[in-house]
């Protein structure tokens, strides 16, 4: 069998980040909050990393904060926004689980619905913002099906009603033009081939925010985080964005080929917006197949793919995103193409799609 090809959302550390990481463990070991010479050097390194990350994300470096766990960034950004004001949370049905749990724990929260492409309903959003909304939290794009959210329109609606906007950048981080009037951002360095264990959040100058957890002093950050990881995240973002500039058109054309191959199979539905989307993601559902067997069929040929079907999750529940879209939740396959994927790999994968689906259907029907 050939070498495994990763078409799921997990990606290895960017080579530029690996170089930086090794050097950084030598230079960045001190606690930057102390007063020693080494601490001053560590402070300089953090400052450099933050400036580089901020430049890559298109924000100011004094607006950017770090936390030593990727999935905590959206939680901190949003909880701090909510703690600073009264009013309810308005968000959408297709946000990440952590955001939906915050919404569920706050009485009066509104989760607006999405259309068949997973795009939020702007008319419903306008209505929801009228009824005592405190904060609006939206993803930049959906990581499961790739659809981008109408951030510009949503931010205009929110600004008109004086409601601050939290944008959860997710997999769109580093490749999204921010609307002018955002107030809070969150991102995970993993999404641009950075290291595991570094979350990034931003609070726009002038936006109210209060540290949401127990503390004895005013603060913006939880405490310490790994300086080498911050440097590696910054190097990865720079390298990844350069790759993205060079590769995105090629990846887009590959996704079009896979879309064609999947749509040509009877009783298969490709889900998500066909145009306004993250260029490297494709999701489809095949009737009369279970997601787990499909994932195994692809794995047998060396391709690692994801699935939102219930049988591939720990719970019995299928993907809340597919459910909210009204899409078929069984037989679901999710593909994230990495940079530098080859023509040969794409061709092999396209040929495999009808075979994999037929193999599973033969066993079940």
């Amino acid at each position: 069998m050939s070498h495994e090809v990763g078409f799921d959302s997990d990606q290895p550390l960017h080579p530029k980040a690996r170089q930086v990481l090794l050097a950084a463990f030598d230079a960045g070991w001190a606690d930057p909050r102390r007063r020693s010479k080494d601490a001053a050097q560590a402070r300089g390194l953090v400052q450099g990393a933050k400036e580089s990350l901020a430049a890559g994300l298109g924000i100011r470096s004094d607006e950017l904060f770090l936390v030593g766990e990727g999935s905590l960034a959206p939680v901190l950004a949003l909880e701090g926004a909510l703690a600073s004001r009264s009013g309810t949370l308005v968000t959408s049905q297709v946000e990440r689980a952590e955001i939906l749990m915050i919404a569920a724990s706050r009485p009066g929260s509104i989760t607006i619905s999405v259309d068949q492409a997973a795009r939020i309903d702007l008319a419903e959003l306008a209505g929801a913002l009228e009824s005592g909304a405190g904060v609006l939290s939206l993803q930049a794009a959906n990581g499961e099906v790739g659809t981008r959210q109408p951030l510009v329109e949503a931010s205009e609606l929110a600004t008109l009603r004086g409601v601050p906007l939290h944008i959860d950048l997710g997999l769109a981080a580093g490749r999204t033009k921010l609307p002018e009037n955002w107030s809070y951002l969150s991102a995970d360095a993993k999404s641009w081939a950075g290291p595991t264990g570094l979350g990034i959040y931003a609070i726009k100058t002038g936006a109210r925010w209060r540290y949401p957890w127990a503390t004895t002093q005013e603060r913006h950050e939880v405490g310490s985080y790994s300086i080498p990881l911050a440097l590696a995240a910054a190097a990865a973002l720079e390298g990844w964005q350069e790759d993205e500039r060079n590769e995105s058109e090629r990846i887009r054309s590959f996704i079009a080929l896979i879309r064609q191959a999947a749509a040509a199979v009877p009783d298969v539905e490709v889900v998500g917006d066909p145009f306004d989307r993250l260029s490297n993601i494709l999701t489809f559902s095949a009737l009369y197949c279970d997601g787990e067997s499909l994932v195994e069929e692809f794995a047998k040929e060396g391709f690692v793919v994801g699935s939102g079907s219930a049988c591939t999750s720990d719970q019995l529940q299928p993907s809340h995103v597919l459910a909210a879209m009204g899409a078929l939740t069984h037989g679901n396959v999710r593909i994230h193409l990495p940079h530098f994927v080859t023509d040969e790999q794409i061709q092999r994968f396209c040929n495999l799609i009808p075979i994999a689906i037929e193999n599973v259907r033969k066993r079940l029907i």
Partner: protein
Amino acid sequence: MDEVIINAIGLRCPMPIILAAKQLPKIAVGQSLTLLADDPAAAFDVPAWCRMTGQELTSSQGSTFVIKKTS
């Protein structure tokens, strides 16, 4: 004509849908079949299957789905 009932209680998706799809050619256009399915995914997948195959979901209550064959 007798009522067609498919009991898929306890079966995981996609099996309830597969059983319903197998039954569909055996009934006439305009006739309905009742599908009993308690898998949590059925609540989403039965409507999606009807939409994808052009059938009509005339009612859905808890684990009981009534599907009218339209083509």
